[in-house]
């Protein structure tokens, strides 16, 4: 983080000089969000269909970039931090505007609470205030999900393992299993809570006293199909989120059956944060002239007292 700040100051200095002189100074002077994204697209490859989730979500893509930030979710808190740090191009793994549509709904709302349409109401005050903050601070937000997680190097996984301090315990290079120093489920959960700075988002199912050695890491959403295929391979599954009336209930039944396999969910966004830290490190290798930093979105949940 500290090094990032140094390089950002240097970058701002270079960019400032260029702007003052009004002369293009190599590539740096004309680095717009569009150009940075072009570079990233070339490096990641694949198709970038307009209908896919990845793409510009807010701000002016032709605006100059002073610095880059990555995050699991471009929340207001994350955007405030990015603006403060002069990182005006934000790469977010999850939507900025509260739905898969990532913007105002195209269909009129139904009855209150009925749902039935995707997206935020066009006159929504939170949506407007967020857009206004983005505009005033010359921020640009790009969603980078499908193409980042499709890389052969599974950085969403290795990033999470790194945050947990488990990188060196990986069993096989291409798999999701980690053999950690054995401890109880309760101790493992305490370690996860502390390493991922969890507040109210962590929930566990299974035997608290089970001995945990082999852990399966699964950032994001774990489906029942994946779970049924892999649950016997690990003492503990650490996932982002699951469906409670499907996956959770399976692990509750395993406990009744006397099986020692456990499940911990830490929250979708928290589980994806570390992978986006890895993304900022990767960006610095692709675009060494642009300072990149990671801003954790963090645990949104708290618990009643």
């Amino acid at each position: 983080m500290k090094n990032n700040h140094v390089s950002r100051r240097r970058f701002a200095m270079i960019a400032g000089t260029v702007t003052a002189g009004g002369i293009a100074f190599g590539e740096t002077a004309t680095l717009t969000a569009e150009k940075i994204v072009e570079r990233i697209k070339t490096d990641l490859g694949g198709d970038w269909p307009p209908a896919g989730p990845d793409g510009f979500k807010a701000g002016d893509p032709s605006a100059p970039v002073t610095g880059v930030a990555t995050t699991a979710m471009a929340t207001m808190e994350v955007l405030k931090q990015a603006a403060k740090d002069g990182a005006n191009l934000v790469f977010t793994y999850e939507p900025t505007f509260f739905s898969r549509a990532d913007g105002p709904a195209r269909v009129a709302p139904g009855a209150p609470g009925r749902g039935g349409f995707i997206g935020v109401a066009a006159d929504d005050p939170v949506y407007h205030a967020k857009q206004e903050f983005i505009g005033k601070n010359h921020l640009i937000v790009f969603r980078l999900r499908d193409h980042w997680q499709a890389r052969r190097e599974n950085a969403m996984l290795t990033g999470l393992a790194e945050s947990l301090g488990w990188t060196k315990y990986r069993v096989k290079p291409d798999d999701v299993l980690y053999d950690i120093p054995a401890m109880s489920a309760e101790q493992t959960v305490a370690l996860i809570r502390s390493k991922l700075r969890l507040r109210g988002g962590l929930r566990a199912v299974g035997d608290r006293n089970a001995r945990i050695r082999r852990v399966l890491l699964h950032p994001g959403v774990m489906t029942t199909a994946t779970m049924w295929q892999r649950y016997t391979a690990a003492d503990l599954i650490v996932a982002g989120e699951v469906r409670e009336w499907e996956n959770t209930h399976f692990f509750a039944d395993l406990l009744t059956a006397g099986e020692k396999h456990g499940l911990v969910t830490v929250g979708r966004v928290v589980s994806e944060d570390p992978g986006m830290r890895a993304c900022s490190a990767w960006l610095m290798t692709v675009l060494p002239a642009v300072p990149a930093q990671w801003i954790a979105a963090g645990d949104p949940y708290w618990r009643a007292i």
Partner: protein
Amino acid sequence: MTARDVVQRIRENQGLPWNDRSARDTFKLGDPDSQVTGIATTMMTTFGMLKRAHEQGLNMIVSHEDTWWNDPDNTKDLQENPLYKMKRDFVLQNGMILWRDHDNMHAQNRDFTVIGEMRSAGIRGGENASMHPGIMTIPETTLGELASQVRRSSGAHAFRCVGDPKAKVSRILVGPGYATPRMTAEADVVIGGEQQEADGAFDNVGYVRDAAALGIAKGVIMLGHVVSEEAGMEDLATWLRTFIPEVPIRFVPAGEPFWT
């Protein structure tokens, strides 16, 4: 009285045309024509709940949620799964019959799951609630105090809250299970069971988080799927007793599955 007779009796007393197209509300396991020794209502047919019902001599389960850990109760991929076999054998060897009442419960004018959810959350005025009761107004309180009240009232401990605990709130939107309502301009707090955290039709968590950062008073209390609908299954048992006098009927909780 057979399990099929029980279901027929429920259909006759529902007060609404029965939804026969529901793929959820079907027999899941056991012989529908076998004799019922007692009925256990429950939020979810967990293995633990099955054992407790069997110990009480109740062989017919009326469950709101699934048995086989997926909503359609598809067992195609589970045939070699040892837990599936163990649970299936337990049901068959003990002459139990599993039936699910989900879509038809939610269709009733009085949706017991929502009525129970409000009662267990300590929200008054939901005694005749439908599945979509609209906004309930409670005396103004803070989100933090409301969450504490829910904790005291429901006895649940692992539920999750989002928003500023000091935010002043009074307009509550309640929904059961995965039917957690989307936040609206009129509501201060959404109380639901569970919801996909992000990238869904509407992400309450991300929205409320940003609202809080902007000083807009909004909150989410995500009770957990079981906690949100469990109390209603006790109401279902009470209702069944009014027209099924032949066999004992008891509510057998599945219980909050989490530790934290």
